[in-house]
């Protein structure tokens, strides 16, 4: 059922591991003696993470089709529940678990 051979899977994991490590190690390579970080970099570091979170939400929903049934309804309902539960109970894990289970029920049993 997998789409990659074991060797390709291993390579893919190594690539993603190396890139992840690079993002964590970069400051230690660039600013070894504790040289001051350029202000432009500091600024980007402050604003980009929030924009990227929003971008990742859009990424997760990139294949939703609004023009054909079910018109993105399961996603919309589950998103409202996730946001509502999180804002109401202030509990991330509860919101994520409940929203995911609800979405699975919706796509498996309701909007077939």
């Amino acid at each position: 059922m997998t789409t990659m051979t074991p060797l390709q899977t291993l390579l893919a994991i190594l690539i993603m591991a190396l890139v992840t490590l690079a993002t964590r190690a970069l400051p230690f390579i660039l600013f070894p003696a504790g040289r001051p970080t350029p202000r432009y970099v500091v600024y980007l570091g402050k604003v980009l993470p929030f924009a990227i979170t929003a971008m990742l939400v859009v990424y997760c929903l990139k294949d939703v089709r609004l023009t054909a049934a079910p018109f993105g309804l399961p996603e919309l309902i589950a998103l409202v529940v996730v946001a509502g539960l999180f804002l109401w109970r202030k509990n991330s894990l509860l919101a994520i678990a409940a929203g995911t289970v609800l979405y699975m029920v919706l796509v498996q049993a309701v909007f077939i």
Partner: protein
Amino acid sequence: MQSKLRAARAAFPHTVPVLTGYVFMGMAFGMLLASKGYGAGWAFLMALLIYAGSGQFLAAGLMAAGFDPLTMALMTLAVNARHVFYGISMLERFKQFGRAKYYMIFALTDETFALLCSARPPEGMAEKPFYLAISIMDQCYWIIGCTLGGLLGSALPINTQGIDFVMTALFVVILLEQWREKANRTPALIGLFASLACRVVFGPQWFILAAMAVLVVVFTLTRRPLEKQRKEGAA
């Protein structure tokens, strides 16, 4: 050895919230990965070598789409770029860590970073064994969660269709958490609209790359007002 054990005992209570979160999210990841046909062994390996929550969720989707090293590298870069700024705040701290520094850098996840910022060793205990214990324990929780999820996902006869939504829910919750801070709202909205526009214009395949470029340009152009806003927000 005795002092390491003492450090671990002192560090453990601080890591309990991460224990809950990592075991739960790790299990969700393991089950998601199993739904793509990759069993517990792969989940274990990814938790050991990649060790990044959001990054691994994205990776599961990418691994289901086939071998595409460039997209994998770029998406991993996009989702983990924020780690660069954790490193910047830990430059000084890790200086006295000797060889353990390399593991501390590798293991610098969101949650571990947060703990390293907030937890303090008890009176008379050195920083290094205490913080190292936090980092090691956190990764152990993640490995246990991912592997357990992989085992369950392969063993239980459950229909996992739709389990991908766990990733959407995760990012939405992170977004809402960031939204509480007023100064974060403009950057988040810029990110949202730029990504939506790029999705419409460039299609699902290419919009991430376009959106990243657009974001850097937009933030460079709006630096003055945004920095002013952040300063006012902090005051």
